[in-house]
Every structure is written in structure tokens, then in C-alpha cells.
């Protein structure tokens, strides 16, 4: 909404500098996005073209004798086609600084010789004055402009660009903003008189209005003006509309727009002679009914759309746009002027469905009060008589089905002010603030009042609305600053939130970088994963996606994090260790989808940046499995990896991740990506290792575990004894199984695998696993004999369980 001060000041005196006023409005809830001024044309004045004659040397140029008002006439060369003698124009003398259209810079205007004639100044277009881009023709000022007046006084202005919240539709009008300024600066608001001379015939005799659907049209008022002449509006009216950003059309349409900008009430003028039986019927459209709007688009309507019709046909869509069939034309002489109140939500729905968010619908949708309709109607009728002539019928037509219902008043008490704001406010002070906003009040007690929401405000319905009105004008700085003194609720630590935070910290500590990506992916991205990862579940889609690459709620984090990896490999060198915690979406047959918390991670590239220590290996499966095991260990969880098969992964290089001792219940997967999958993401240069953990399963396992209470183990005072043992086992015996068997033996504290060997000296189909085993007792120093006995027991058990033999 654009508010020119030149127009606004008709209703309220502006007593503050523009920036200060803008600040006050913004603090009070009417946000001013921009303040700008037009003008600063020092040395430019209103000039008068006394005579013109053709340029002797150029057909397109005119020589103009211009009276600058304060001296003898000067001769000016003008190239504009619309220049003519008798015009008041914008005259710039040599020496003033103006935009040079040829250089695009502001430059000092110099006397110039144009095709052999000296031009002693310039007649300006809008472009040279930086009002608009328009430079085809010069600006022609109104005839009553006084010659010699500084141009700033005629064309200069200051504008507020408002960014309104939806509740303050009233400030889509000059009066609305004026009332706000009046309250903020203590100035009186001048509301225009709306009376006009009425002729003998009653409006209700010249036309008739029926509301068939009063739920959608709360009030319909109309006036009738006969014998008008359609033509251009007077200059002042056109000028105001242009300054406010609207295009003048003709006197009648301009008046309806003017009153809309003045009072906030949209109006519509029908050519009364096109209305059959001069009978307006406000009714729902029939399903499938077709109607051609003013913009010559045929629209198909439903019973949810409200029409303005006559007995034979529709003539407008209520509160949205009029019809081509009843439009004001140059030959229109009799008018039906409509000022109605339409149901805001229905109006908004219709405008949205038809994609016709007009100036009118933007006002109706925010809810206009029925009391406003007749006031604006009278104002518009008055201005039409003034600008288009004719005679106005006596009175107005006013169909107001619920007109006898009183407007509910809203109470306000000092007690509630204190309860909500936490400060003591005198009721008298609250009352004077409300009154300054035009809200009438009545005391109902020493500490209470009742307020009448004024006809221009539709957003005041409850006591809290009044409290806001009071405090926004007083200013929030007056509210004291206190700390919460109500009881602190029991702290509800959320187990999943805690788990996620711990896992993030653990992964970061293990060297992984956290990423966060979009949860919407494209179906193509999921397809790249092979058919393995969406587990046969159907996909959840977005009905109105912003792009085809973002229309599925991801069932896995894999595609996202592989894209993140691919992006980074395209932009950065080095190895990558990335992870993300996010949600995977699994549709349910009914209601909201299951949102599964998932952790996913990926590694790829050199283990270290290029370094002088010659450590140049690339990250592999064991880097990620070691990182993951370390991170889980930090959370008190021993991870167990067991061989698995999955289409997304390289055959034989994939494992289920489980919590040790619960191998049957995998909580995730880890593996080297299948080369085809890696290639699909342009990641085929080096192995890509990926893991995904289901955190709900992890949480369930962790919650079920009593480890916390029995976590502490006392420290033995006695020394440990180490033995190295190389065991030859079949190649398919998992190393983790051997280790578990060793650690199960009494006195064994820990077994670390330090060598894996296959080849010479080890039988075909077997491999040697060398463990460093640490023995320790809690109650004594172990003797060599103790250890020997333990080793013997251990080798026997290993032989029995996995056929292991001790290597020489």
C-alpha cells in the first residue's frame, strides 16, 4: 500500500518528519517498509508555453516561447510530440541538475544549441524528473498551476510504502492510516463530508436489490445516478490515483477507486440500463455457470461463488470483479453504484479459486464491517455528481438482513490489563488511548469499561484485542521486565532428543562432519539406490511440489547424503566423513506417516589429506565400521557387525549392525556401496562406505538395557599378564566370533586382534588370526601356571567351537 503525504494530509496534520512518523507507525504495528520522497528539483518551476513554432531545421522539434514566471520569456527547443501552446509545463532553467537521458547520470543543464537554435532551458518529461520511466511526452500540468511556482510544491511528495499484516486491512486506506497517525501523534482526523444533493425520485423506485444468499452477502447498498457524462476525471483525481499507484480510467471508475483508497470500501458501478428490470439479485452461481469478467476471460463457477446478477444473467462476481456485460462505457448515462459487504472467507475462496486477487477482494477477504458500506456509497455518489454530473436519486437502496442486530461491545478491565501485561494501567489512560483511535467507550465501573469497535475496524472482538490497542499506542517500553515466577514444570527430558544429541556428539568426536539436507527428494534419486532401500514401502508425495526433484518425502537418507557427498567431491579435495541425523517418512494406512529418526553416514576418499608422512591410503569399510563402533562405544553400546547382503552394497562387503548380544535384532546396515550405485551418483572414483542406523531401534535396545546401573566395574589392583596367540581357523569363521569365544574365558580381560594372515604356511581355506590376550584376576597376581591353564582352556574351547588350532 502506497501512501502519498499529499493525499494523506487531507485527513490528518502530519506533525513529525517522515522518518520519525514511519518509525512510530512501525512500532505500533503498521510496518513501513520504505519512506521515499519525490522532488528536490531546485530551480525547476511551473512554466507557461506562450507560443510554439516549428524548428526551422528539424521536423520533429518545436520551438517554444516559455514564460518562467519571474522574467522575460525564453526560447526552448522541445522534442516531445505533445507540447502545445497554452500548456503549463515543468520548466528547467540552465544550471539545474537533472537526469541526462543520454548519459543516464545527473548533470548540470547547460544552454545548448540544437540544430542551430539556442535552447535556454528544458521542458521536462517524467523521466527527467525521475518520477517514472516515461519520456515520450512532456508533463502537462493542470491549468490552475501558477506560473513560477517551484515544481517541488506542485509535483513533490513523500510516500510511505506499507507492509501490512492481514489483521489491519483498515490501513489499506488513507483514512485508516490517518486514524493511526492521529492516535500516535495526538492529531484530529478529518473525515470527509459525504452528503450530496438528492433529487426527488427515490433510489428504490429506480432500481431494486434482492439478496438470495444472505450468508455470503451481509449487506448491499446502492445508489442511482442518472444523466451522467462519462469522461476523464479532473486532474486532481487522476493525480491522486496515479500517486497512489492506480491508473485513471474514467470519471466513474476513478471515483470508485478513489473512495476505495479513501475509505477502504470497494465499490462497483453498473450501467443501470444493462441491468434487466433494473433488478439486482445477489445469489450463488449455479454449478458450472459461465461468466465473462471485465478482463474478457470466461470463467466457470460453482455454487460456492457469489454472483451479482439481474433476473436473466450474471453481471458481476461479488466483491471480486464486474462483468463485461454491465461495464461502464463511454455512452453510459445511468448508473447503479454498489457498495456491499461480502462474506470475507467466501470472497477469498472465490478470488483464490479464480486466481483473481483484485484490489477489491484483498479488502473484502480481510473482513469489512457492514456499517462502512453506506458511508462509502454516499461519498462515491457525491464525487460522481461532482465529476460526472447527473442527478442522484433520493436516498439509497439498503438491503441489510441482519441490520437490527446490535454490534457486540467489548469489555476491558484494569484487572485483565494487569493479568495480561503485568503492569498497572489506569482505566482512564486506557480509555483515552482507545478514544484517540476512534474507539468509543463507556465506563461500566471504576476499573472497567465497554468499547464499541468503530465501523472501520473489523479486528477488534475480544478484551485482548483492546489490550493490544492500548499497549501498542502507549508502547511496549512501558511494560516492566520481570522473570517468570510461576512454578517450574518437571523437566521432561525427551529420550529420543537426548539420544540424538549424544549420537551427534559421539560421531563428531570420532571425526565425522554433520550435515543437514532437504527431506524432499526426487523419485529418480531413489531409483539410483537400486530397488533395495525403500523396503517395498510406498512413497509419500507432496501434492504441490516446487520441483520434480523435490516431490517425495524421503524413505531413506541415502540419496540425500550421497548427493551431499557428490556435491562436495565436485567442489573440494580430500577425504570426506559426513553424517546426518534426520527423519525417514513411512506412510501409514491412516493418518500421519511414521517419522523414523535415522542416522546415516558416508566416507570416501583419501584417509588423510596429502601429507609428508606418506599415509596415502583411501578410506575403506573398516574406517567407517571402526568410527561407528567407536561412536557407539562412547554411548555405552558395543556394536556387532555380521555379514549381510543388500542390493545397495558391494557383494560380500556389507554388514548388519547390531548391539552386541542382540545379533538377531539389527539396528542398521553398513557397507561399501555397489559400484553401480556409486556410479549413479557420480561417485565411482573411490570406494564409498555408507551406514544407516534406525534410532528408534537403537533407543528401544538401549532403554531395555540395564547396563547403566551395572556399568561400573571395580579396577583390579593386580597386574595383568599378556599372551599372544595365533589361531588358524577356516576362512569363513568370523573374526568377531573367535574374539567373543576368547573373551568368554575366565580371567581373560580383553582380546585384541593384531594380525590376520592368509597364504604360505597356512593351509588353503584357512587363515591365521593373532590375538593379544590380556589376563587378569581381581583378587591376586596371576602365576604363569594360572595363565597357562587359562590358555589351555581357551584353545580347547576354540577347537571345539570353531575348529581352531594354535599356530606353531
Amino acid at each position, binding site marked *: 500500500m502506497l501512501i502519498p503525504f499529499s493525499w494523506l494530509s487531507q485527513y490528518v496534520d502530519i506533525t513529525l518528519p517522515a522518518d520519525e512518523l514511519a518509525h512510530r507507525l512501525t*512500532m*505500533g*504495528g503498521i510496518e513501513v517498509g520504505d519512506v521515499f520522497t519525490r522532488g528536490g528539483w531546485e530551480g525547476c518551476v511551473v512554466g507557461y508555453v506562450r507560443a510554439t513554432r516549428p524548428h526551422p531545421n528539424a521536423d520533429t522539434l518545436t520551438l517554444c516561447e516559455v514564460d518562467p514566471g519571474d522574467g522575460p520569456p525564453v526560447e526552448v527547443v522541445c522534442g516531445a510530440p505533445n507540447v502545445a501552446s497554452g500548456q503549463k509545463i515543468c520548466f528547467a532553467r540552465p544550471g539545474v541538475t537533472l537526469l541526462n537521458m543520454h548519459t543516464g547520470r545527473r548533470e548540470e543543464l547547460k544552454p545548448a544549441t540544437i540544430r542551430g537554435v539556442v535552447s535556454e532551458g528544458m521542458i521536462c518529461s517524467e523521466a527527467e524528473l525521475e518520477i517514472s520511466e516515461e519520456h515520450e511526452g512532456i508533463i502537462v500540468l493542470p491549468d490552475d498551476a501558477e506560473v513560477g511556482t517551484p515544481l517541488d510544491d506542485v509535483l513533490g511528495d513523500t510516500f510511505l510504502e506499507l507492509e501490512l499484516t492481514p*489483521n489491519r486491512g483498515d490501513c489499506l486506506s488513507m483514512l485508516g492510516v490517518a486514524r493511526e497517525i492521529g492516535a500516535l501523534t495526538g492529531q484530529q482526523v478529518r473525515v470527509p463530508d459525504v452528503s450530496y444533493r438528492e433529487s426527488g425520485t427515490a433510489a428504490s423506485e429506480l432500481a431494486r436489490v434482492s439478496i438470495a444468499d444472505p450468508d455470503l452477502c451481509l449487506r448491499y447498498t446502492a445508489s442511482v445516478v442518472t444523466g451522467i457524462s462519462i469522461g476523464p476525471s479532473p486532474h486532481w483525481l487522476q493525480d491522486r490515483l496515479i500517486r497512489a499507484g492506480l491508473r485513471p480510467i474514467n470519471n466513474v471508475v476513478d471515483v470508485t477507486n478513489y473512495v476505495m483508497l479513501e475509505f477502504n470500501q470497494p465499490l462497483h458501478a453498473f450501467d443501470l440500463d444493462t441491468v434487466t428490470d433494473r433488478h439486482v439479485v445477489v445469489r450463488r452461481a449455479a454449478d458450472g455457470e459461465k461468466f465473462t469478467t471485465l478482463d474478457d476471460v470466461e470463467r466457470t463457477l460453482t455454487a460456492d461463488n457469489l454472483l451479482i446478477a439481474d433476473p436473466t444473467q450474471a453481471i458481476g462476481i461479488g466483491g471480486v470483479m464486474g462483468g463485461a456485460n454491465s461495464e461502464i462505457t463511454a455512452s453510459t448515462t445511468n448508473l447503479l453504484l454498489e457498495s456491499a459487504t461480502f462474506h470475507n472467507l467466501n470472497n*477469498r475462496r472465490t478470488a483464490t479459486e479464480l486466481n483473481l486477487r483484485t484490489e477489491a477482494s484483498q479488502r473484502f477477504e*480481510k473482513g469489512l464491517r457492514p456499517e462502512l458500506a453506506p458511508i462509502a456509497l454516499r461519498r462515491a455518489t457525491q464525487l460522481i455528481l461532482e465529476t460526472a454530473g447527473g442527478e442522484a436519486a433520493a436516498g439509497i437502496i439498503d438491503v441489510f438482513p441482519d441490520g437490527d442486530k446490535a454490534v457486540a461491545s467489548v469489555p476491558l478491565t484494569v484487572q485483565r490489563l*494487569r*493479568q*495480561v*501485561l*503485568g*503492569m498497572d494501567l489506569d482505566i482512564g489512560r486506557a480509555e483515552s488511548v482507545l478514544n484517540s483511535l476512534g474507539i468509543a467507550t463507556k465506563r461500566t465501573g471504576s476499573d472497567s469499561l465497554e468499547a464499541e469497535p468503530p465501523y472501520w475496524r473489523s479486528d477488534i472482538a*475480544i478484551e485482548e484485542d483492546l*489490550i*493490544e490497542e492500548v499497549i501498542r499506542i502507549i508502547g*511496549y*517500553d512501558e*511494560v516492566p*521486565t*520481570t*522473570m*517468570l*515466577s*510461576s*512454578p*517450574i*514444570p518437571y*523437566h*521432561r527430558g*525427551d529420550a529420543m*532428543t537426548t539420544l540424538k544429541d549424544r549420537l*551427534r556428539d559421539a560421531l*563428531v*568426536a*570420532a*571425526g565425522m*562432519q*554433520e*550435515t*543437514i*539436507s*532437504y527431506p*524432499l527428494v526426487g523419485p529418480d534419486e531413489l531409483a539410483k539406490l537400486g530397488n533395495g532401500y525403500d523396503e517395498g514401502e510406498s512413497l*509419500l*508425495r*507432496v501434492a504441490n511440489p*516446487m520441483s520434480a526433484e523435490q516431490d517425495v*518425502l524421503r524413505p531413506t537418507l541415502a540419496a540425500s547424503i550421497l548427493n*551431499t557427498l557428490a556435491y*562436495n567431491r565436485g567442489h*573440494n579435495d580430500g577425504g*570426506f566423513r559426513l553424517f546426518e541425523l534426520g527423519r525417514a*517418512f513411512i*506412510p501409514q494406512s491412516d493418518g*500421519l*506417516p511414521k*517419522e523414523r529418526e535415522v542416522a546415516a553416514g558416508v566416507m570416501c576418499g583419501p584417509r588423510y*589429506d596429502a*601429507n*609428508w608422512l606418506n599415509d596415502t591410503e583411501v578410506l575403506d569399510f573398516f574406517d567407517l565400521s571402526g568410527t561407528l563402533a567407536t561412536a557407539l562405544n562412547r554411548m555405552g553400546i558395543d556394536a556387532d557387525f555380521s555379514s549381510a547382503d543388500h542390493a545397495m552394497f558391494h557383494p560380500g562387503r556389507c554388514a548388519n549392525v547390531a548391539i552386541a548380544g542382540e545379533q538377531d535384532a539389527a539396528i542398521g546396515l553398513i557397507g561399501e556401496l555397489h559400484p553401480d550405485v556409486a556410479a549413479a551418483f557420480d561417485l565411482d572414483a573411490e570406494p564409498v562406505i555408507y551406514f544407516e542406523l534406525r534410532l528408534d531401534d537403537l533407543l528401544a535396545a538401549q532403554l531395555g538395557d540395564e547396563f547403566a546401573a551395572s556399568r561400573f566395574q571395580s579396577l583390579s589392583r593386580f597386574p595383568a599378564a599378556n599372551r599372544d596367540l595365533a589361531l588358524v581357523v577356516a576362512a569363513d569363521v568370523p573374526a568377531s566370533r573367535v574374539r567373543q569365544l576368547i573373551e568368554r574365558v575366565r580371567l581373560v580381560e580383553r582380546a585384541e586382534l593384531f594380525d590376520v594372515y592368509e597364504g604360505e604356511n597356512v593351509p588353503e581355506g584357512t587363515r591365521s588370526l593373532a590375538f593379544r590376550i590380556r589376563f587378569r584376576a581381581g583378587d591376586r597376581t596371576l602365576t604363569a601356571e594360572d595363565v597357562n591353564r587359562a590358555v589351555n582352556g581357551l584353545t580347547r574351547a576354540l577347537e571345539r567351537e570353531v575348529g581352531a588350532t594354535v599356530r606353531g
Partner: protein
Amino acid sequence: MTNWRLRAGRWSIRLTLRQGAAYNFTSLTLLQRIIVSQVLAQTQSAESISELASQALAELDAVPDADSAEQWRVAWLGRRGQITGILRSIPQLEPELRREVGTAANQARNLLDEALSRRIRELAEAELAARGALDVTLPGRPVVTGRLHPTTQIVREVCAAFMAMGFSVVEGPEVELDHYNFEMLNIPAGHPARDMWNSLWVDYVNEDGQQPMLLRTHTSPMQARVMESQEPPVRVVVPGKCYRYEATDATHEWHFYQIEGLAVAEGITFADLKGTLYEFARRVFGADRQIRFRCDYFPFVEPGVDMSISNFVDPATGRRPINRDEDWIEIMGAGMVHPRVLEGVGYDPQRYTGFAFGMGPERIGMLKYGIDDIRHFYRNDVRFLRQF
């Protein structure tokens, strides 16, 4: 040259010695050493001891390593060393000589002791120096570190500030029902305020032909969910992802985080809201921050406000705390919970009051760290992520 007849116990030998000369004891047999010591002791004077000490110091200077230094110590200061021998022989000296020789010998011993310590230190240092210096400018052995995403860091910082004031952290569903995302927040269907939240709807139509699910446009729906699940008092903060149907640019993302806060109890006022958010602003932006409220509109609060923090030029440095040429910077929306929201969850709005607020951690991060484009956050370029 003098001939001496010596008695040492039962043994007697004849030696020809040059008075005052130093003898390399290491070349002598044990017996010879004892005898020579005896002889020397009986022939010492203060001058001769001083000469001996000079000789010993000269030898010490030539000692090349720790082992040789030990040999030197044995030869001079050991149980059978020359100086020790002189000291031992003192009782057998003529009484008039004892004092002079004793003093001189003790002085010599102390002198040599000190010299030896010094020499050992020198030798040790020389040995370390000889090991060779490191090029300390070589890069260290690589250690891989990770970092939390900046959004996670800011969410944690903000939540910690509120947890210190008794708030709990809760999360909620990212796919939400229209009912919670809008209806329960006093934003009925068709309401113009819905324009404030352009939504991404889930492609699912229920039996009534409605499309009831959307990607939540804010974390505010948890207001109703939390209040439905418990009685007052309530104090929660709700961090999480939100989504809007919105073109992206340097200050807009369709996918972003929000941290919603809610406190409801008897007696909570706007003044408490000011105090709570003031404390937050000080914790996150620094102790000298001021806050300011202006009227704003959110359908689920009344009165509704927008909070800004001060960003004045520091006269000492001539700079602003946040690198933006504005005295006040808007941080979040807030207000007193609308009575209709309380009614909707079955709270009595005459008895209970409360406040709610909501802020974007990305914006807070952008302000704190001077990030110029919100799109950096979820592009996940490690050059960006590693800066935080």
C-alpha cells in the same frame, strides 16, 4: 728428586718421586695407588693440593662423555681417588700440617664436585644437541575432527539458554495435520492470515475428500500438542524443521528450522515475556544487549509483537556488534497466547495466561557470524560447515 721409604702397614717400598708431581693413578695397581696416596699425603702442602686440583680440572675438561666423567670421578673423588686419599691421610700428618692440608683438600674436593656436576650437565646437553633438531614447522600428524552443523550448534545454544530458565526441549512431527498447524492456532481454513504460511501439502486425501496433511510451516503446532498432553504449568521450547512453499534467495529457504517457545501458567504476563527474552538475548548475543518490542500480528497470540535486539555502534571501536547498518535488528515474533488457543486445548483462559515466541536459528546464525546467504546452510559445502 727424593727417595722415600714408605711404610704402609707391614709393607714397605722404596719409591723415587718428584715432589708435587701428579701421577696417573689409573695406570697403577691398587697397592701402588694406596702407597702413592700415603706418600703424597705426607708430602702435601696447600700449594701442591691446589696444583693437583688444577690438574684434575684440566682432565675433566677433556672428558669426552658421561662414562669418562665417571672414571674421572673415581680417580679423583672416588673412595680411593687422589683427593679422598689426601683427606684420609690427614690424621697421620704432623699436627701442625693437618689444618693446612685439611682445609686445602676439602676446598679442592668441593671445587671438583661442582666442576663434575657442571661437566655432566654440559655433556648431557651436548648429547641432546647432537641428536639433531626437528623442523618444527612441519605439519603435525593428521588427526581427523568433525563438527556439528552450524544449525545444530545454534539450536543447542538457544535451547540451553531457555533450559536454564526451566524450559524443556520437545520435538514434534514434521508432517502435520492442518488441525494442529492452523486450526488449533486460531487460523481457520480460508483465513487471510494463511497467506503468511504458504504450505507444501502431502498428496493424501482422506475419506471426507480433504487434504489434511502438510509439511509443518512452523513448530508452533506443538503448542497445542503439548498443552493437550498435560496440565499447566507448561514451559517448552520446540526446535525442528519447517517448510514453506517459497522461492529461495539469499534470505529465504523453503526448508529451515524454527525454535518455538511456550510458557503457560497462572500469573504469566507480558512483563515475564520481556524478562525471558531479555535473558535469552543477553546469553546469546552478549550482556550489553537491549531489546525492543513492536506490535506485530500472529493469529495465535494477542497482543502480538516482534522483538529486536540493539545493534548500536560501540563508541570505543566504532563498530556495531552485528555487521549490519541498523540500530535494531528483528530477531523473533512473540506474544501472549491467544485465549482461543487456550480454550481449544481445554485450558481456562481466564485463569491461565502464557506467552509464545518463535525464532529462526539460521537468521540468528547469520547475524552472529555474518553469513550473507541462508542457502549455505543446507548446501552442506564442507568449506562452509568447517568454519563453525
